[in-house]
């Protein structure tokens, strides 16, 4: 999965949690939860969605690293199983 495909998949999962999300207004280098108004339950559901779809284990101790969309994409890209198609 390349960077563009990963971004699309992440945004698709995010939109399932926050259907009103306007992708055009999203800034990849700003805190994601604040921009999309994700409370702790939304955030957990988002991470569950990512974890299940991308087969990536996201430790709770890593949550602090996942502030912006850029942070999240880099974190996931580094942990994607080899040859994962994101299906």
């Amino acid at each position, binding site marked *: 999965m390349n960077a563009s495909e990963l971004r699309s998949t992440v945004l698709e999962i995010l939109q399932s949690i*926050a259907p009103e999300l306007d992708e055009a207004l999203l800034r990849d280098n700003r805190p994601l*939860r604040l921009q999309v*108004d994700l*409370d*702790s*339950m939304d955030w*957990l559901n988002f991470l*569950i969605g990512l974890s299940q779809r991308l087969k990536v284990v996201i430790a709770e*101790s890593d949550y602090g690293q996942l502030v912006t969309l850029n942070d999240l994409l880099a974190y996931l890209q580094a942990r994607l199983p080899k040859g994962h198609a994101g299906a």
Partner: protein
Amino acid sequence: MFEFKLPSLGADMDEGTLVEWKVKPGEAVHKGQVVAVVDTSKAAIDIEIWQDGTLQQVLVEPGTKVPVGTVLAMLLALDESPTAAAAPAPARQRVSPAARKKAKALGVDLAALKGSGPEGSVTLADIEPAAAASAAAPAPADNRPSDMRQAIAAAMSRSNREIPHYYLLETISLERAWHWLEQENTGRPITERLLMAVLQLKAVALTLKKYPEFNGVYQDGQFKPAAHAHIGVAIALRQGGLIAPALHDVDSKPLGQLMPELADLVKRCRAGSLRSSEMSDACITVTNLGDQGVEAVMGVIYPPQVALVGFGNVAKRPWVDASGGLCVVPTVTASLAADHRVSDGHRGALFLAELRECLQQPQDL
């Protein structure tokens, strides 16, 4: 033969439009079964029945707007046969001739009106306020955000008008709870991880057992304590607005059970699939605005409840420990808004102190 009435759906929902019947005349129903769906200003609600029986006659058809308390259907009890019981005619709404004429002239929907006259009859005095309210806030069927805002405003105005609030704040160290949660979640798959919000809800429920005067409703001039710790959880809807459905028996459930129940409640709340019991039987509300970064919440009590507990954000802050040393620990500011007709500040302070102690023993939650 018994009546099935539209139950109370909370202080800010006094009427609803029947969307559909889930059972047909002649079909058996059992206690707890969803038998109808009613649309309110906030959401579509699944209406449960609380007695076994057989649906005999439907009195309200889909598409009809009716006030809370309206008889929706007649049912046969388990020991009755269809021939033994004749369904009475639907209770007719009493409307004075002058009121009927005025309602027609002003376009007021009589079916949605609760009469203030003898035996609930609608009088001329009921029509003009209804017409004024309708003119002040026209409510098209597809305008839920506006309807919801109006419903919340009405309930909160009533709260501020009727309830003599007092407010208390307590900043609580969550050092133990934080570390306990961290350790607990390390061993859990992501789908079973716990949130701090669940620990807070359970701590409130356990505190209520010791201070029951905060768990109940104020009705007919007196406090009626609740038998269960059904906690209303304030849930923000993504399109705006707020619903506070009940999470049931919070005091007696382990955290591992409360977490998926809370997740399910939030999901159904946002999907518009709540049950009537969840809308009506909460006896205290907990609101958590910590995720939005606020330090504390000074809440407005949801009538007829008598208390509301609020939590601000959990963040690391300077703290003086028991030995007088300065350190940095995660803390939260808990608030209590309570009703002076039922309790006073001294008991409220004890409530918050007990809540603080409960959160120091996360393994016991």
